[in-house]
């Protein structure tokens, strides 16, 4: 077990149990929680775990703040969409698209990382924000190429669609959608384990040393720029792959679903609340976040109705204001739980 986890044990009984539960729930989701809505949630959790973990690689382990992450996510998604549109439906198209998205993300990440050579770290954050916004605007404007605001529909191979039937297992009908889900699940699992391997490798340790004290690391002899650039590229490429999976699952891609600032904010929130620099924080954080997002909103809706007679309160409790409370939780997290949920469980301050 330790070998699979690259030696990165949960270091907390509660955490280990939580992780096991999440893993089992996701692995057997089609059977445990029948219904397309639950499956949708499960797939979303899988993909976001990878997306957030890749961001943790950059922020938590590398200490680099970037707002361009959703851009890379979008590159993977649009890669698949455009490849399918040009090459027709089929696995080669999916693979090409994913590969193209990943390579593009890696190259752009490299360029951005090299730019950071000349500017201060704090400029870097603002620059990534500006670039990501510009790309989002560009994508919605170049409609002939990218489908603009409306996005693009993706035609996936028949085996992955609900129309494809394969029989029954344990009372649940197996159709292409479930196959699609398992494609997503296993790829995300593989990517997550890959990231565990990366952060627990010598490379990962040097990265953390750089995060703690870049000056000292450089003095010892590590080319800080190289490590940071590599971290940025890896993070971007994995995000792109997550984006490709997302596109295949959703069968649709559009600026709102992949490039919006809201997603970037969500990633940031999850990474902080889950616990920066832990990888497992992404797992726990994403699960809690996505579940809360779905079901808490219903709760808030009920509370808002119940208090509709009072002034202002119903507006504060309205499910549309879910971000308000998340934002407050986020701020409190940064102050009082800087190590996030995972940090708390592990007892580190």
């Amino acid at each position, binding site marked *: 077990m330790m070998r699979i986890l690259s030696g990165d044990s949960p270091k907390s009984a509660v955490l280990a149990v939580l992780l096991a539960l999440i893993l089992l729930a996701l692995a057997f989701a089609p059977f445990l929680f029948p219904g397309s809505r639950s499956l949708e949630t499960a797939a979303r959790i899988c993909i976001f775990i990878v997306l957030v973990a890749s961001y943790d690689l950059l922020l938590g382990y590398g200490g680099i703040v970037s707002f361009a992450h959703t851009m890379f996510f979008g590159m993977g998604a649009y890669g698949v969409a455009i490849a399918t549109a040009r090459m027709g439906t089929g696995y080669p198209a999916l693979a090409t698209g994913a590969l193209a998205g990943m390579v593009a993300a890696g190259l752009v990440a490299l360029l951005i990382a090299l730019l950071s050579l000349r*500017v201060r770290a704090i400029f870097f954050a603002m620059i990534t924000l500006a670039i990501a916004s*510009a790309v989002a605007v560009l994508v919605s404007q170049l409609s002939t190429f990218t489908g603009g605001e409306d996005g693009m529909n993706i035609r996936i191979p028949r085996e992955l669609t609900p129309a494809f039937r394969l029989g029954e297992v344990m009372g649940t009908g197996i159709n292409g959608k479930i196959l699609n889900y398992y494609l997503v699940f296993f790829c995300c699992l593989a990517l997550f384990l890959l990231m565990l391997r990366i952060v627990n490798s010598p490379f990962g340790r040097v990265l953390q040393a750089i995060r703690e004290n870049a000056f000292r690391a450089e003095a010892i002899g590590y080319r800080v720029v190289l490590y940071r650039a590599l971290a940025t590229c890896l993070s971007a490429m994995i995000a792109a792959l997550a984006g490709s999976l997302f596109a295949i699952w959703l069968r649709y891609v559009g600026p709102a679903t992949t490039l919006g600032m809201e997603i970037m904010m969500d990633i940031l929130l999850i990474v902080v609340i889950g616990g920066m620099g832990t990888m497992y924080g992404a797992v726990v954080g994403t699960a809690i976040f996505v579940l809360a997002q779905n079901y808490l909103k219903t709760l808030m809706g009920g509370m808002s109705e119940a208090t509709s007679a009072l002034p202002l309160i119903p507006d504060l409790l309205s499910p549309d204001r879910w971000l308000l409370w998340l*934002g407050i939780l986020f701020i409190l997290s940064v102050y009082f739980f800087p190590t996030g949920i995972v940090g708390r469980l592990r007892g580190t301050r």
Partner: protein
Amino acid sequence: MTDAAPSHAPTMTKLPLAERLRPWLPVLLVPVLIVVGYLIIPSQSSWLTLTVSGLAMGMMIFVIASGMTLVFGLMDVINFGHGAFISFGAFVGTTVLLALGQMTGAPSLLLNLLAIAGAVLAAMIVTGGMGWAFERAIVRPVYGSHLKQILVTMGGLIVAEQLIYVIWGGHEIVIARPETLKGAITFAGAALEKYRLVAVGVGLIVFLALRLVLRRTKLGLIVRAGVENPEMVQALGYNITRVFVGVFIAGSALAGLGGVMWALYQEVITAHMGNEIMILVFIVVIIGGLGSVEGCFIGALTVGLVQNYAAFMEPKLALISNIALMVAILMWRPMGMVPVVKAK
């Protein structure tokens, strides 16, 4: 005399022309850009309209960005929540203007300006107060950690934006310009919107006022010294923390003013509007150089002009042009055009 150094006035060798010109190069950027615009835009009247628009937009961005660059330069604090002050300013100002509908509807320039003044005052008081609260509650606990500042101020941004939804509802509000500022005057065959000319004027006043305070007052002296070396300012006997707070509040109030100006420029406001402008504000702060009001001014005008010229030539490339501009300037001067803050 004594054995001290001889007290002759040493002759300073004149620096070569190129060296002497260097500090002035950024200032030339704006007129050069305007000339370039003249050359590439086919119609003279279009060029005139765009130049005025560009300058007006630039002025508004300057008003907003000036607070941010001073806060960043002086306190080494990044406030990603600055956008919230813009939006709040716009909403408060709009509310006041709508309440003063009688005055804005009247065909009297005086009444119109008074109404705007009232809106601006209200907006600046509210956003100034917000700034004070923001600094105390959200920013102060995380002095010294840029990472935490980014996170926490982004959180603050989200919360503030959501509060706008709670207070004013989720839809956009349309706000018409006051009667006498509607429409345009024609000049040299071009239609120049009256409001935009006013915006340019307001921006200039703010710039000159800031320069005056910074160059001629004791407070300004403290701020300028503090941007360079806050520790030494303290060692001279000044409580720089109070100055910090003051600058933060002033910066937030200016963002509020910018918000009102922007609201009247766009004639419609949304809770999200602050964020949309923040991208350009960041670009301006970066290319202007931290802590420099002059750099910010030049940067803002440049960005405003580029935005308008590019949007006219090829609308899809407007934002990308400004990104390209930012990259180009950073290649030329990695610390920004007129950096005051020494590398920290």
